[in-house]
């Protein structure tokens, strides 16, 4: 199973890279399935609030497939997908979400705060919009130090209504920072449908229109197709790397799980509720239609029809991904808890 991203030699995406992309999408999906199953199989093992990336696979992988080795990814609290693609150990990720000593952050961060700077993933914030500014700051570092890096900044449709979004994009545009802003429009922020809270959406316009406020390119792309995302992001990355400044890409897809696990007070264990489309709005057809356009199914079909992926290869990839994540769960379950006194570490550098 290819973990490290193969190089692209030709202009078009080669077979190896396509298989790699497909594999990463599967790994994200399987990771999130295992996180979700943990709530049922091991109640109480995951605490706090956990947000899943199922549905976002094509968007995440399509975007990150364009990157150079040193480029950074900086998303929000819904952060499981990206480090998987960047090469972070899924064992350590799962152990972190389980609050264990062997976790990526030794149990200090949890699901919302994965960080793996060694793999180009500096860390995340759980407060809406704030990390958009952090990513912009990382782009400032790249510019000042002339590292040649581009920063991939991911955030939600909801987050694009936070002042931090607007202030950051304006500054990035004025300073021509090397950053690509990827607005993941999954059409919901928790219970709220985007047209209830976004003026562009309420008017029937795409959210990428916000780019006009900064006189930068803004495009909307089908986020269920990794190749379309790839194309749009690649263009933006080139622009950024050439010193021409930021772009805004609205990637539209659908989140398959509920926003996060239900919020309860201990000892009542948390569980994942139904998706808000159904639970709050009773829109069963909408949800079914979105599931029918599962980016993994669509991409598998495309790769098969293009002759890139054979049935046995697909089966082999699936099996290895499943085994990898089974190992991750076992590793995490077996890992000890940090000892309490360690809590006072890491307050100051």
């Amino acid at each position, binding site marked *: 199973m290819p973990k490290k991203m193969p190089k692209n030699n030709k202009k078009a995406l080669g077979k190896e890279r396509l298989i790699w992309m497909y594999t990463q999408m599967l790994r994200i999906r399987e990771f999130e399935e295992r996180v979700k199953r943990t709530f049922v199989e091991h109640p109480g093992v995951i605490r706090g609030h956990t947000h899943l990336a199922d549905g976002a696979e094509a968007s995440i992988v399509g975007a990150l497939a364009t990157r150079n080795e040193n480029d950074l990814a900086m998303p929000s609290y819904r952060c499981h997908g990206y480090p998987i693609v960047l090469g972070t150990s899924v064992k350590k990720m799962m152990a972190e979400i389980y609050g*264990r000593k062997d976790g990526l952050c030794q149990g200090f961060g949890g699901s919302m705060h994965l960080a793996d700077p060694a793999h180009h993933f500096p860390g995340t914030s*759980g407060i809406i919009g704030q990390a958009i500014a952090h990513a912009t700051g990382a782009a400032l570092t790249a510019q000042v130090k002339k590292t040649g890096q581009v920063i991939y900044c991911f955030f939600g449709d909801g987050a694009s209504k936070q002042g931090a979004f607007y202030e950051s994009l304006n500054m990035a545009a004025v300073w021509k920072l090397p950053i690509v802003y990827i607005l993941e429009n999954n059409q919901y922020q928790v219970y709220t449908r985007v047209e209830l*809270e976004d003026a562009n959406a309420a008017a029937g316009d795409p959210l990428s229109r916000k780019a006009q406020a900064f006189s930068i390119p803004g495009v909307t792309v089908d986020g269920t197709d990794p190749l379309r995302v790839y194309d749009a992001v690649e263009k933006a990355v080139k622009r950024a790397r050439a010193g021409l400044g930021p772009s805004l890409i609205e990637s539209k897809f659908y989140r398959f799980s509920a926003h996060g696990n239900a919020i309860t007070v201990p000892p009542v264990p948390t569980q994942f509720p139904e998706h808000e489309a159904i639970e709050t709005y009773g829109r069963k057809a909408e949800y079914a239609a979105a599931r029918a356009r599962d980016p993994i199914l669509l991409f598998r079909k495309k790769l098969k029809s293009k002759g890139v992926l054979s049935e046995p290869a697909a089966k082999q990839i699936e099996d290895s991904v499943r085994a990898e994540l089974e190992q991750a769960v076992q590793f995490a379950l077996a890992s000890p808890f*940090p000892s309490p006194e360690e809590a006072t570490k890491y*307050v100051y550098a």
Partner: protein
Amino acid sequence: MPSEMMYAQAMATAITEEMTRDSNVIFYGQNLGMTDRDPLVRKFGKSRVRITPISETAEMGIAVGAAMTGLRPVVELWMSEFMLVAMGQLLNEAPRLRYMSGGQIKVPLVFKAGYGFAAGWAGQHSNCIYHTMMGIPGLKVALPSTPADAKGLMAASIRDDNPVMYLHHYMTMLGKGPVPDGDYVIPFGVADVKRPGSDVTLVATGWMVTKSLAAAETLAKEGISVEVIDPRTIAPLDVDTIVNSVKKTGRLVLVDQAPRHASVAAIIAGEVAERGFHHLKAPVKMVTALDTSIPYSEPLEKYVLPSEEKIVWAVKSVLGK
């Protein structure tokens, strides 16, 4: 006639009752009143119950402007840390506008938020930031610990002609208790003796009241009588009740979920060092969170927060035991 209800329900009841009583009261926030089926939307309509984007600065600032011009907004802000992105509206707009106008306007609004969710929410969602709201003249701050207080202080907050920060504790949301029916308004600045006692005065707020009462119960079995006082509002803060209790007991333990220098505990200790010094027979003792952010993993999180055991130990220590 008191009914038995949950803390969360008691708050909701007060909001519904006040909205019924006064048509100037409106209620809005993120992720509420999404559809026409929502009970509050059904009762009060989409004009008075509104869903907002994730725009705390606008949500809070709009409340200020609406309050300046005749409405009484109640804003659901969910977790108090979310307000940090818009803290100017809370600390430097709402409480100052009346004063700067020479008393010409008033700004009656309620910002409602939860805090202290010590259940694995990690570094940015579990904090106690109430210290930032103290010493802000013009601003009142309520911190109810029981369902009855939750109702009575919510009613008081909505009826108050000043900006009020209403902070409810996430860990007490499902706790049940008797709640008076109908009009029930708890005045600001009046502490409540949650348990009378004679050996040691113990002051706590929110979830720490629950922990302190448990500790008091344990200590009672060892023959130690603890008076547990809940200030209920920290701005204004009822120092008199605390000093009077110390006059009786001579000893003071302060329990607080925040780190030491972000605690109400330290403020009260300071007040008593000035106003109750001569009554004190022993140094005051503070039981606060350790000086760390809140970690995710359960054993780490438990370690940094005040516990029943730490409270018991502190009470004994001020008694020289």
